[in-house]
C-alpha cells in the first residue's frame, strides 16, 4: 500500500528493537511492555493534539446521517475483506453472507452509503486477517501496540500489515484522484476515530492506568472473539469461582435490614471470613 504506512511500520520495527530491554520489569502477560508503553504514549500524544480534536471537529460540523453514510461507505470495503477472510477460513456461509452484503449495499445501498443489508437480515460479521490466523490455530498472541492504529496483538498486527500491503479494492476508487490514498485513508481514520469518541471518553473516566486498562480490556475482548481462554491476570489465578474464598457471601445475618441499605451493612458481615482466610490458605506468593 502507500508509503506513509510503510514508513510507520519501519519506524515501529526500529522502536521495537530499541526498547526491547529497558524500563519495566518483564511481565509474562506483556513481554513487549516497554516498547508498547513507548508506542502508546507516542500514539496518545498524536491523538490528543491532532486526531481527537479533528474527530471532535468532524462530529461537530457533520450531522449524524452524513457520518453514518460515510462510515457505511468504508464499512462496505471492510465487508469485501471480510468475505475474503471468511473464504480463507473456509466459512462458506459467512463468505456468502458478506458477498451478498457488498452486492446489496453497493447497488441499492447507493455505493455503500446506506447499509440495507443489515435490515435485510444479512449479519454484520466482520472478519479480519487476524481472525483468520486465529481460526488456523494461532489463538494466543502477545499484546502489541501498533503505531497509529493502537491496541493489537502480534497476530492481528501482522494481519493488519499484510492487509495494508495488498492493493485492495479501494484502490479502484481513488487511483486516478490526486492525493487519493491520503484522502481515502484520512477520511477512514477520521470516521473511525469519531465513532470511538464515546468509548475513549469512557475509558478516560474509568482507567486508573490507561495503558493497562486498554491492554487488559482489549486482550479479554479479543480472547472472547477468537475463542481463546481468557488471559490470566498477573496475580496468577483466582477464577470467578474462588471469589467466595475472598469474600464470604453476605447477608446471612441481616435478612431484616432494609433492602435500600444493603451496600453498607454488607461490610461488617465480610470482616470475619476475610480476616480468617489467610490462616486457612498459604500466603500468596510474590
Amino acid at each position, binding site marked *: 500500500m502507500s508509503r506513509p504506512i510503510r514508513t510507520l511500520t519501519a519506524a515501529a520495527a526500529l522502536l521495537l528493537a530499541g526498547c526491547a530491554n529497558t524500563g519495566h520489569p518483564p511481565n509474562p502477560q506483556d513481554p513487549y511492555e516497554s516498547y508498547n508503553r513507548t508506542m502508546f504514549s507516542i500514539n496518545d500524544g498524536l491523538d490528543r493534539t491532532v486526531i481527537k480534536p479533528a474527530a471532535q471537529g468532524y462530529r461537530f460540523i457533520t450531522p449524524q446521517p452524513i457520518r453514518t453514510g460515510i462510515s457505511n461507505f468504508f464499512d462496505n470495503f471492510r465487508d469485501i475483506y471480510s468475505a475474503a477472510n471468511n473464504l480463507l477460513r473456509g466459512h462458506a456461509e459467512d463468505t456468502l453472507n458478506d458477498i451478498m452484503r457488498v452486492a446489496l449495499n453497493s447497488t441499492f445501498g447507493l455505493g455503500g452509503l446506506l447499509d440495507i443489508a443489515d435490515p435485510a437480515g444479512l449479519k*454484520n460479521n466482520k472478519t479480519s486477517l487476524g481472525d483468520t490466523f486465529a481460526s488456523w490455530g494461532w489463538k494466543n498472541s502477545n499484546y502489541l501496540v501498533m503505531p497509529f492504529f493502537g491496541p493489537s496483538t502480534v497476530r492481528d498486527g501482522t494481519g493488519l500489515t499484510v492487509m495494508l500491503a495488498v492493493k485492495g479494492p479501494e484502490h479502484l476508487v481513488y487511483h486516478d484522484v490526486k492525493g487519493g490514498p491520503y484522502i481515502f485513508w484520512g477520511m477512514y481514520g477520521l470516521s473511525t476515530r469519531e465513532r470511538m469518541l464515546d468509548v475513549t471518553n469512557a475509558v478516560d473516566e474509568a482507567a486508573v492506568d490507561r495503558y493497562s486498562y486498554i491492554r487488559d480490556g482489549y486482550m479479554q475482548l479479543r480472547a472472547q472473539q477468537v475463542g481463546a481462554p481468557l488471559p490470566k491476570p498477573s496475580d496468577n489465578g483466582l477464577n470467578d469461582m474462588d471469589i467466595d474464598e475472598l469474600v464470604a457471601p453476605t447477608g446471612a445475618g441481616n435478612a431484616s435490614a432494609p433492602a435500600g441499605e444493603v451496600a453498607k451493612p454488607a461490610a461488617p458481615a*465480610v470482616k470475619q471470613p476475610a*480476616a480468617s482466610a489467610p490462616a486457612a490458605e498459604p500466603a500468596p506468593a510474590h
Partner: protein
Amino acid sequence: MMKRLLSSFCALMLLVSSSAFAASDSPVETIRDGARQVLDLLKQDNGKNTRQVRQQVEALAVPQFDFQRMTALAVGRGWRQATPEQQQQLSQEFQTLLVRIYTSTMTRYKGTQVDVKPNPILANNGREATVKSEVTLPNSSDKKPVSIDYTLYKTAQGWKIYNVSVEGASLVTVYRNQFNDEINKSGVDGLIKMLKDKNAAVTAKGNA
C-alpha cells in the same frame, strides 16, 4: 408548585419500587426491572435536570450491586493482605469510581434499548447466575447490539450483581493488573491513595 409536588411524589414512588425489586428472587427479573426503571428515569432528563436524574439513577442502581465483592474480585489475591479497614476504604473508593462510570455511561446512552435474555447461566448450585443482555445503542452507526453480561449471586436481600462484562471483557477484572502493580509497588494504602486521587481528578474535571 403542583408540579414539584408531583415530581417528588414520583421520586418517592421510585424509591419504594426500587426496594421492592431489590428483593426480587429471580436474577433475570432483577436485571430486567432494574434496566427498565433506569431507562425510564433517564427519559425524564430534559437537559436542565441532568444532575438530579443522575442522582436518582445512582439511588436506584447502587442497591443492586455488591461493591465489596466487586472490589475483592477486582483486587484478587491482594485482597487478603488488606485489613478490614483497608478493605472498607478500597470498596468505598472503587464504588465511587464504578458508580460514576455507570451513571455517565447511562446518561450518555439514554434512549438505549435493552433486551434481557430469559435463560441465565447458573453456577455454584444455583447460587450464582450470569444473565445475558443485548444493548442496542441509539444514534450509532454500529447497529450491531453490544452484549452485556451480569454475574449475580444470591443473598438474603435478593440477587446482587458483582461482575459486569461488555462483549466478554469484564469491567471489574480489567482492573486486576493495575491494582496488583500498585499493591506491589506501594502497598494497599498506595492503591487506596491512587483510587482517591483518581476520583478527585474526575470530580474536578466533571465540575469544571
